[in-house]
């Protein structure tokens, strides 16, 4: 492959587009009619999710089996199997999609491959048992466009995830890939490009929501012999995988955006800081970088212009604090990953002291499409101050666990109930944690707030990078606050006093409360100490780490008081507060509990009701699991 110039890229796009036509058609498909070689379909493509989640459920074997079946049937010239990035509906993975009819097969097993090929691909009959069943209507839905999970979504950053083969640069090019870069290099000044980004209203998706165009403008304004574009791929929130999915499913969008950013700020070197625990994302990025280099889309004289730009991958060891941009930069410099005071901001003095622009993966993924579709298009999505869409990782006690992307301004209720399918097992919704360990817990009363950067902050939480964890009535909010604080205490870099010692003291108080040893004074101390930590900590981690404590105290004060005054945990999560006893009416005296008790805490003669010695009981729950007569009472 020779390196491309502007004209070559246009030609290549036309050619590559034909390859994608089968998939593009699926967007337009309105009926749920089945395609199939027998019913006259000429070309069929099977898309199989190759994201980390589905791969863990053996999707690679599904691909092998599909290919083998196609080979055996001798239809390889008419049917392609394409490994894509994540479709988002992880709850129902592994997923196989049939194009062009857009049939969405869920929870596919390797042994289903042959049937899909024989029945659907050849016979034109859908495999009913693999179709998604709408829990509300109990009807099958075959086209993903018609599923509640997808209906309210708008995939902008995730536009290519689950659609193209991330290891094939031509598929990205077919989807207008590198068109924004080419156009910028050919027809726009850096200032003009920055202006488009400013007009679009794009804000940083890593958490703080700083306007991206303004950030680029700052970095452009500093004069230096070297400048750097850094992609922050150090995704660290527990349960969040927005950035990973983009890098696995659409790595070129990140590379293209980095090149555009470099053109704008006057950099010629890009660094991607990625956690080493993301092997698949690293693998795909490496392939993408090699391909982009081979095609002349990065490297010396990009597309024959005089713009030079190359990208290097840097590995993080998985420290949460390294998502903070100054800490990230220090880690890349080979120093201890810990933040330093801002200002100076990286735009002034970043990597090795040079002006550096750091953007998160999702932010970057939005850039090329903003430039191809225009600032007005992007700004038409979302709320007044938060434009575009946001990707969230839905997790916790929710039916549809997965990766979703919605316009800013969508309500929590729409996300949790319409897209997420509501709380698991019909339990009562209690809270939703947004913004990762630095965010807050929102409740029933917040469900109808249109979510954007500002409304979430006003409600006592934050956008964060997009983690969203749903909790039900079985979750104890003191324990939840304690859980998040345990995370920040262990992930603190230890540099500043409030974060290093203050959070530890908060955690100790919370632990006391969950053990029934808290006092009402402790509740006041929690609030004042948390406020001081927020006010005095050095970096964003410390300044936000008390949020889970403060938001749970605000929204669930009764629960705290119950723990303190009545030594009661209504969700029965705080072991130390539970009392195990045996209901003598139900107990048959079989002795199963007594034999199973590891603490020797159960007394009683055979065929007579047993009793539990509360001083010996370690509240392990073994007796409860052993009892056949439901006689163990926990209060």
């Amino acid at each position, binding site marked *: 492959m020779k390196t491309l110039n502007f004209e070559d890229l246009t030609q290549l796009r036309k050619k590559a587009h034909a390859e994608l036509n089968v998939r593009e058609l699926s967007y337009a498909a309105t009926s749920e009619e089945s395609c199939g070689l027998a019913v006259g379909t000429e070309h069929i493509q099977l898309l199989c999710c190759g994201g980390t989640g589905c791969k863990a459920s053996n999707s690679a074997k599904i691909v092998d089996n599909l290919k083998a079946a196609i080979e055996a049937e001798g239809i390889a010239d008419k049917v392609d199997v394409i490994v894509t990035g994540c479709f988002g509906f992880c709850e129902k993975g592994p997923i196989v999609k049939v194009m062009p009819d857009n049939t969405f097969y869920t929870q596919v097993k390797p042994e289903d491959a042959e049937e899909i090929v024989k029945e659907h691909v050849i016979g034109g009959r859908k495999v009913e048992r693999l179709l998604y069943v709408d829990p509300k209507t109990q009807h099958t839905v075959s086209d993903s466009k018609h599923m509640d999970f997808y209906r309210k979504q708008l995939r902008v950053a995730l536009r290519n995830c689950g659609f193209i083969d991330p290891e094939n640069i031509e598929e990205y090019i077919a989807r207008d890939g590198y068109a924004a870069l080419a156009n910028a290099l050919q027809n726009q000044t850096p200032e003009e490009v920055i202006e488009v980004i400013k007009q679009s209203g794009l804000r940083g998706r890593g958490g703080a929501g700083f306007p991206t165009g303004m950030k680029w403008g700052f970095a452009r304004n500093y004069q230096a012999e070297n400048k750097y574009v850094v992609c922050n791929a150090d995704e660290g929130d527990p349960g969040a995988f927005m950035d990973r999915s983009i890098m696995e499913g659409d790595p070129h969008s990140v590379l293209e955006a980095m090149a555009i950013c470099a053109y704008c700020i006057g950099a010629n070197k890009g660094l991607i800081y990625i956690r080493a625990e993301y092997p698949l994302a690293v693998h795909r990025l490496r392939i993408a970088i090699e391909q982009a280099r081979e095609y002349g889309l990065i490297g010396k004289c990009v597309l024959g212009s005089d713009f030079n730009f190359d990208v290097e991958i840097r590995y993080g060891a998985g420290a949460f604090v390294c998502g903070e941009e100054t800490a990230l930069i220090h880690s890349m410099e080979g120093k201890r990953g*810990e933040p330093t005071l801002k200002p100076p901001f990286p735009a002034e003095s970043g990597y090795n002291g040079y002006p550096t622009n750091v953007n998160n993966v999702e932010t970057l993924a939005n850039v090329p499409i903003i430039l191809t579709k225009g600032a007005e298009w992007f700004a038409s999505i979302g709320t007044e101050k938060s434009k575009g869409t946001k990707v969230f990782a839905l997790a916790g006690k929710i039916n549809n666990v997965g990766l979703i992307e919605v316009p800013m301004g969508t309500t929590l209720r729409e996300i949790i109930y319409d897209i997420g399918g509501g709380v698991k097992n019909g339990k009562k919704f209690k809270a939703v944690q947004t913004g990762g360990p630095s965010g807050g817990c929102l409740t029933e009363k917040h469900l109808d707030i249109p979510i954007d950067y500002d409304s979430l902050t006003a409600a006592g939480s934050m956008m964060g990078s997009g983690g969203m964890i749903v909790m039900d009535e079985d979750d104890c909010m003191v324990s939840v606050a304690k859980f998040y604080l345990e995370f920040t205490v262990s992930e603190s870099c*230890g*540099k500043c*006093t409030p974060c290093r010692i*203050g959070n530890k*003291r908060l955690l100790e108080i919370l632990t006391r409360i969950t053990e029934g040893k808290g006092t009402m004074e402790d509740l006041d101390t929690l609030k004042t100490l948390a406020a*001081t930590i927020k006010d005095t*900590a050095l970096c964003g981690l410390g300044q936000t780490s008390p949020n889970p404590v403060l938001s749970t105290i605000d929204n669930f004060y009764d629960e705290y008081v119950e723990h303190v005054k009545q030594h009661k945990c209504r969700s029965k999560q705080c072991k130390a507060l539970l009392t195990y006893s045996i209901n003598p009416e139900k107990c048959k005296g079989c002795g199963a509990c007594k034999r199973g008790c590891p603490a020797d805490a159960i007394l009683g003669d055979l065929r007579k009701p047993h009793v539990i010695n509360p001083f010996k009981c370690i509240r392990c729950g073994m007796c409860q699991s052993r009892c056949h007569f439901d006689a163990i009472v926990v209060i």
Partner: protein
Amino acid sequence: MITITIDRHEVVVPANMTILDAAKVVNVEIPTLCHINLEGTCLKSNPASCRLCVVEVEGNRNLVPACATKCRPGMVVHTSSPRVLRARKTVAELILSDHPNDCLTCPKCSDCELQRLVRRLNCRNIPFKDGERMERKKEITPAITRDMSKCIYCRRCESVCNDVQSVGALGAVGRGFGTIVGTAFGKTLGDTNCTYCGQCVAVCPVGALTERDYAEELIADITNPDKVVIAQTAPAVRYALGEEFGLKPGTSVTGKMVTALKDMGFDYVFDTDFGADMTIMEEGYEILDRLKKFLAGDKTVKLPIMTSCCPAWVNFYEHEFPDLLDYPSSAKSPGQMFGAVAKTYWADKMGIPRDKLVVVSIMPCLAKKYECGRPEFKVDGNPDVDYSISTRELAALIRRSNISFDSLPDSDFDTPMGESTGAAAIFGTTGGVMEAALRTVYEVYTGKTLPHIDLDQVRGLDGVREATIDLDGFPLKVCVVHTLSNARMIMNKLRAGELDYHVVEVMACPGGCIGGAGQPYHHGDGTVLRARQRAAYAEDAGKQLRKSHENPDIQRLYQEFLGEPLHGKAHELLHTSYSDKSIK
């Protein structure tokens, strides 16, 4: 210049000034703990991590650290609003909650910056005192004691060890509550490339890093009737010791110091300055020797010759530059020269057997403690200098011996090893050894009297100072550096073949021995070092004899005992060798 408002004051300051410094202009002293800036040297640590200097800036969401936040035009700063006072106190309480608070028995009691701060913030209880505390094992090395349970993680030691000394033995380890300053892989300090310069001790605000204390050994020896205990006092001790007794920095207390040592029970009190004059004889002649060979066309001669008085510097090049061990002078340090002569020449004269003689050096230095234990400086296991105590330890012992230092009369050093010249007096400051050596080298080489005895070119506190001396038409290029990062820079250039000097002086501590790690704590006040330096030059200026080779006792010593410099007995007793001690 910009105008900002600090509390009730409007102040006009340069735009890049920190709030902390701007506040000082209007006499507002914002408390600090982790911050240190020893003006006049490169010793600066500014992590903005303790958060005790937080202030309120109108329009800012959070409080900001005054030590690292630059002034902006129109900024309105409140340094003691209720919000600030509350936050500051809480931060102090948090630090106390992870501190042993055993102040009464702590070596830093009454000299501790945390203690001072807590008093100032009026902390009367520790709300979180029942929380977990980080207990850590105490490490005692020959020179430094590390009691990391007391560490408050200000990381001044780390900055000094890395940025000022470029040694990197200490660094942050671990995460979260367990974060600590430590060595790589938890090695003991002795197993790292630590040079025992002790600058970490000099800047530690609390009792986590202190000197290895030899007070008990000393008291045992002094009170032992079978031992003859003699003291030698280093040049830099006499103009710093007074600070421990409330005297102004730079006050010379030589006479009182000698009286105090005698009152404490030392049998004889001698002067390391005498050893310094000996060092100049040996090192000066070594310079001359190499120069002559060089001028005679000898291509194998190693130039520049480097001074070797500073034991931390010796450790540094043995660790880091084992390929360049031929460059430093083989002359021992003044203290070790003194010890070697005391235990031979003087002991023979006095008829004192070696095993009954105890030589104690009183030093501004902690690396000297380690130096005493080097096998090269022992005869059949008996060290030439038995042990070394610091200026601070001496002060503590004087207090403990019920001596009212202020009102002591002056005494003279004992003879014969108490007579010294002005050249020796300036050994304690950066540039002093070079100046002393050049006075002798010039006169011996040219046979003429030095026209200007004060060599101003090599004086001062700049990290690297160069001068060219006209030796009868031969331009002798010399260089003076202090701190080990500057030394590393010089050595790297030497290794790369880019160094164009004939003589280089290196001292490890900022300012030389005046800023030694055994001196009274400067607590970040750079004027203290400058005052000590002025005192050194004043003492030199006041001396009748200012060139080492003119010291009559030295002349007699060479006539009676040592013979010619660099040869025979002088070589045997006053020179040493170095070995590769790189950490593999």
